[in-house]
């Protein structure tokens, strides 16, 4: 019975595929933003 409840809960939640945790997802999104800001800053400085 407990297994069924756990299974239903997992179906409703889903998994953070392809990573093991949601923290990895958040770190990638945040890292991508920081990378883009640095890239755009260099872009601005080099060509201004």
């Amino acid at each position, binding site marked *: 019975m407990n297994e069924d409840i756990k299974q239903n809960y997992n179906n409703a939640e*889903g998994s953070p595929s392809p990573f093991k945790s949601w923290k990895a997802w958040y770190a990638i999104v945040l890292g991508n933003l920081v990378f883009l800001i640095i890239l755009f800053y260099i872009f601005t400085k080099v060509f201004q």
Partner: protein
Amino acid sequence: MRSLDWIVLVSSLTFAVAFGIWKGRGSKNIKSYLLSNYDMKWYTITLSVMATQASAITFLSTPGQAYVDGMRFIQFYFGLPLAMIILSITAVPIYHRLKVYTAYEYLEKKFDLKTRALAAFLFLIQRGLAAGLTIYAPSIILSVLFGWNLHITIIVIGGLVIIYTASGGSKAVGWTQSYNMLIIFLGIGTAFFIMLYLLGNHISFLDSIKVAGKMGKLNAIDFSFDLNNRYNIWSGLIGGLFLQLSYFGTDQSQVQRYLTGENIAQSRIGLLVNGIVKVPMQFIILFIGAMLFVFYQFIQPPLFFDPVATKNIKKSIHAEKYEALENEHKKVFEEKRTDLNNLVSSMNSDDESETKYSEKRIDESELKLNNIRNEAVNLIQKENPRANPNDVNYVFLTFVINFLPAGLIGLVLAAIFAASMNSTSAEINALASTTIVDIYKRTIKSEASDKHYLVFSKIATIFWGLFAILFAEFATRIGSLVEAVNILGSIFYGTILGIFLLAFYFKRIKGTSVFFAAIIAEIAVVFCFIFTGISFLWYNVIGCLLVIFIAIIINSFLNRRKISVQ
């Protein structure tokens, strides 16, 4: 437009509409009409939220924005990835677990009916007006192409969108958005590569970037802090975060997109992928505008990009004076083009003194060109005081019409129409959901059959479509469309976000405190908009923080009063 363009445009639109109607044919009850039976995967959600946000305005106005103001507008989107993370942690699991139809249902569960109704009402006003602008944008295209009356064009386009949206429902909206995003990427990508190819006849790609940079169009990052400066990294990260949190977390047109996810993870991944790809996508669109600017440094642009206004002035008593300005414009443009060629040569040979001399000459020419342009605009307004002095929305279109080969003009127009139909249908679909679920079903007729609510959802869709058309009729004097939509959103979003943050994080605050705090905060934001020069992105911060602080004060006052009465 040639026959091949018409074939491409009509086939693409017919396929999109037919595909939407076919996919939406199973929407026989209110749950499938409004929420697509919770069956969407993350990639459909990503495309759907991107398609809803990236309306035709994005593709028409954003390149023009970069053409006029450079790339600093990119900073506006820096708050978006942060908002995607916060919403994935907070709003997504809450909405999913409560199985709500609209975001505002949650407010009644947390506070009371009047707070839910107030948030729904603010959404209906703001989104109803914004839907008007998304109909207005493609209407410009037709009025430009065929010289049709803009007001009649708005009615025709809006009418077509209403028919498509009312028949489709949420399922049709989601599926057509995926197809249309493909057309959008194809159309805009093709236009960009053709522009680079044509530019290659005059200047190399690297030199184009150097020229754009020297002329101040690659100003992507600005670290200066100034409340009156519309776009810098601080207004983008802080103001943009509040705006995007409110847009994606509380605006039903977006909430409805990720509520259709089959589980929490699919909705979360859909939003997070949007957080990764949105900023680069906007960068590319702005970069197209910057390159368009370089393109028009070597190919002479029209003195004024709005062809209808130009045609009218040439028929008026000011025609002779306008033609003299055009000749002067041509002369100065040719001088500047020579100086630009010298600038490129001197930059490549590292000749610093020659580079500085060319830059100075170019600056002088720019000043002269601006003065000539201002005179032309004054003349246009003298002839017609109602003429819009801002031609930013015509810049990209002018390039498409004049320089793309047969078939590709049709493809780009198909992309713009697809984008507009997507966002408008999502907006009208969300407006209908809120009207039926939060207002009609909750306060007017709570007991009725599923079929009754389905019919009324379709009626509400038609009503909001007509409302949007009416607003579009008054939008002709608004400057840059992409800014207008965001300014409009910012007037309301801060207050709505404040209400939701109180619901998510402040357990002891009661509904009455939130309700009055929201009304006071909204008045304060409208005051800022009318009477101060504060940049619009900060309205989101001001509105949100005011709601929270005032609600805390009112709540503590009511609590003390309650204790003293006891």
